[in-house]
């Protein structure tokens, strides 16, 4: 296992810049998730790390070894990387044991290979599957075999490209938990590309948020969720509301969640900007009180474990959504008293477009 250090990475494909001066550090043995919307360049980043794409500039280092810099690009077969693509990418002409031992042929004796295959199949929870063919396996089983195949070569790093995307919701959560636990226990540095924020938040030690070919923020799941550096970063990890606000003094703010809307805006002595609020940080109260603002319930979307309540504030065109676990006493068309119970994430006006 080794750490990963990427500096100033730029990748251009067909005259289009896909990655732009990208920086990323992942410490040895950790499980990292690259999270971002489709087309942001996350798969290109993974393929650059694997050596399947030659960058235009920048450097990639595995531990102390420089694997990609303008004068040297180590080919993929010399990087000692385990790569698990979407749907596993098992060789259809080879049995499970031949797939798992694919990288070991000629390096080890048949007996050692068989033992290692058995060990790895036990590890991924599929003993006695040696003779099966890939087409006889379910999607989840194929992913597990692909992981065993990648682990067989004792890689410095494992790269997972949306490995659970093709699985259905129930299987996906089960398999992803198993795979992540397995990789963490093996202490192999692992990097998973995903567009599913729940996958990333649940599994990763570190999340790198990507937008437009750059890592816009990286940190622990709670750090990137609770302290996003921008609205875009906040959006990547969960639902977010951007509300107009004024900074009064110190940590005091005026926002539609604590003041009538007409009091907010361009005012002398007050700094204008926006606050970022997660829907679960809005409290709904049946009674009025201090720093509570009245709003009208326009819709309730019930999800079972929680509900999203849509609120209309007088003077505010935007619909505000609050997530609540208890909908008792809430009715469409009735008035409710709203307050803000979470941290304040202030975005000054000049930074709001980022």
């Amino acid at each position, binding site marked *: 296992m080794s750490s990963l250090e990427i500096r100033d990475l730029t*990748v*251009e*494909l067909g005259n289009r810049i896909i990655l732009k001066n990208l920086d990323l550090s992942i410490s040895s043995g950790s499980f990292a998730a690259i999270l971002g919307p489709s087309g942001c360049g996350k798969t290109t980043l993974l*393929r650059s790390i*694997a*050596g*399947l*794409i*030659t*960058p*235009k*500039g920048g450097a990639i280092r595995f531990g102390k070894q420089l694997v990609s810099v*303008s004068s040297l690009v180590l*080919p*993929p*077969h*010399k*990087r*000692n*990387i*385990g*790569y698990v*693509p979407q749907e596993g*990418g098992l*060789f*259809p*002409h*080879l049995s499970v044991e031949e797939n798992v031992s*694919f*990288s070991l*042929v000629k390096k080890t004796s048949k007996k050692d290979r068989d033992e290692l295959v058995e060990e790895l199949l036990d590890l991924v929870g599929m003993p006695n599957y040696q003779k099966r063919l890939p087409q006889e396996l379910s999607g989840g089983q194929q992913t597990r075999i692909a992981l065993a*195949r*990648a682990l067989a*070569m004792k890689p410095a790093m494992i*790269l997972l490209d949306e490995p659970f995307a093709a699985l259905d919701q129930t299987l996906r959560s089960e398999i992803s938990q198993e795979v992540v636990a397995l990789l963490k226990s093996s202490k192999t540095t692992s990097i998973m590309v995903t567009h599913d924020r729940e996958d990333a938040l649940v599994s990763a030690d570190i999340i790198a948020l990507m937008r437009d070919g750059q890592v816009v923020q990286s940190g622990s799941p709670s750090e990137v969720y609770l302290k996003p550096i921008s609205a875009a970063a906040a959006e990547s990890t969960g639902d977010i509301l951007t509300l107009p606000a004024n900074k009064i003094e110190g940590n005091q703010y005026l926002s539609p969640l604590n003041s009538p809307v007409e009091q907010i805006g361009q005012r002398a002595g007050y700094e204008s900007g926006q606050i970022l609020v997660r829907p679960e940080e809005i409290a709904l109260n049946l009674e009025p009180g201090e720093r509570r603002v009245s709003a009208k319930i326009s819709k309730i979307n019930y999800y079972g474990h929680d509900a999203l309540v849509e609120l209309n504030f007088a003077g505010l065109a935007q619909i505000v959504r609050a997530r609540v676990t208890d909908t008792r006493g809430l009715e469409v068309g009735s008035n409710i008293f709203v307050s803000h119970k979470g941290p304040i994430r202030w975005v000054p006006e000049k930074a709001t477009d980022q």
Partner: protein
Amino acid sequence: MGQDSWAKRQSRPSITLIAASLIAFLTASLPLFYLFRRAIDAEVSEISLILFRSKTLEILATTLGLTIAVTALSTLIGIALAWTLFNIDLPFKSTLQALVILPVAIPSYVFTYSWISLIPGFKGLWAALFVLVLATTPFITLTTLAALRRSDWSTYEVAQTLGLNGLQIFVRVTWPQIKNSVAAGSLLSALYVLSDFGAISLLGVDTLTRAIENIYRGSFDRSSASILALILVAISALVIRLEERSRQRLHIIKSSNRIIKRAKTNDKFKVKLIALFGIGSYLALGLVIPLFQLLSIFLANSTSINYSLLFKASISTLIAACLGALIALALALPVGVLSAQGSRLGRVSDKAILIVHALPGIVMGLALVSFGSSIGWLYQSLLLLSFAYALLFMAKAVGSVRSSVDRVPKNLIEISATLGLPKSATFRRVVIPLATPGLLSGTLLVLLAAMKELPATLMLKPIGFETLATQMWSYSSIFRFNEAAPYALLLVLIAAIPTFLINRPDKGDGIGGDQI
């Protein structure tokens, strides 16, 4: 620094591959070199005399007219057969699918021979049109069926929900998805007609192939024969170019990777009856009547058959054809791989090989007689005969190699590299095993064509070496149909084996369809 993906660099051909392709290209070009060399021996006045005499123009018109008419008719019938077999819920459907392809196993001269023996006055242009349409229709049926099986069924369902009727669906949805494959089948049909010797010779139709044969046999004038052969090369090149231009890049994006069960096919009794009548008529003319005729002649004369000669000819046929198929595969492999990688050398070699494929066997025979006689031991050897088969039919193997290598998923090549395997090992352990079914199909296609080959075999066979085709020919050309029948029948039976293997009904995607 210029940059590209590793996959792109990975696909750059190695020196070994380029060298092997060059060897294949130069080898395939041997008959073309021969033609040019012979043609420049002739005086300019002689060339213009041959080119512009009325007889040449007449032959040219017959050749072009016959090629266009056969290709158009076989394309229409082939599409109709494929569409019917794909869309109508017929009894014994997979058997019918195998049977409509089976006429490929019958050489055109056997077709002709059986019809001549049935109808004594069977002769001339119309007879040639009839026989060649029957013989070439399977090319289109096969490629169209394969394309229909690959097409996205959900698009037909969507078209139905959008209110399109059957004809509109065919024109606006089906046709764009199958037209490249239909064009590929039509190309094969046209090249078959251009190079056919057996049928037109027996039916007395003066096409370029027959004229070349007559000039050579009559006067041993190799220069004039070469000039006519070059006209044939030019027409073939034009046909290949036309097919290329008609081809559009088509990416069928299936709406889902899941296997979607096809909606119920048409099961109306009246429709089924009409469909069965159509397919039955084709099978009767293209398969049942010729085979029945051969069988009747054979049974009427079974006592006087020389079984030891029959057995010997069968073994000789198989040995020469197998050796030819192996040489073809060895030469086709580097060209097919290069072509799949999009290399220019691969594409150029591919085209040269396709043009050689359209050469009549007699031209190949002439070229190799000239080549073989300069190397004493090679002349009239089994190796030279097999080499001729390889050159004539290498195009079939190249097509199979190209399409099967092209279908190996690129992500598996990448995964192999990330698992530590260099390019050569990836090729050996991933590409070749995955492409093997296609490579085998290609080899079988060459085997099938080589077993049926006649004119080059007549010229190049070692002394005393007789194949089923040459034995049959030697009897039927002197109208001893009774003695020719067992050879023709056995040839069809043996050729039916690779035909069936290539197009096994259980092969869901009709893999042979792209390659025949």
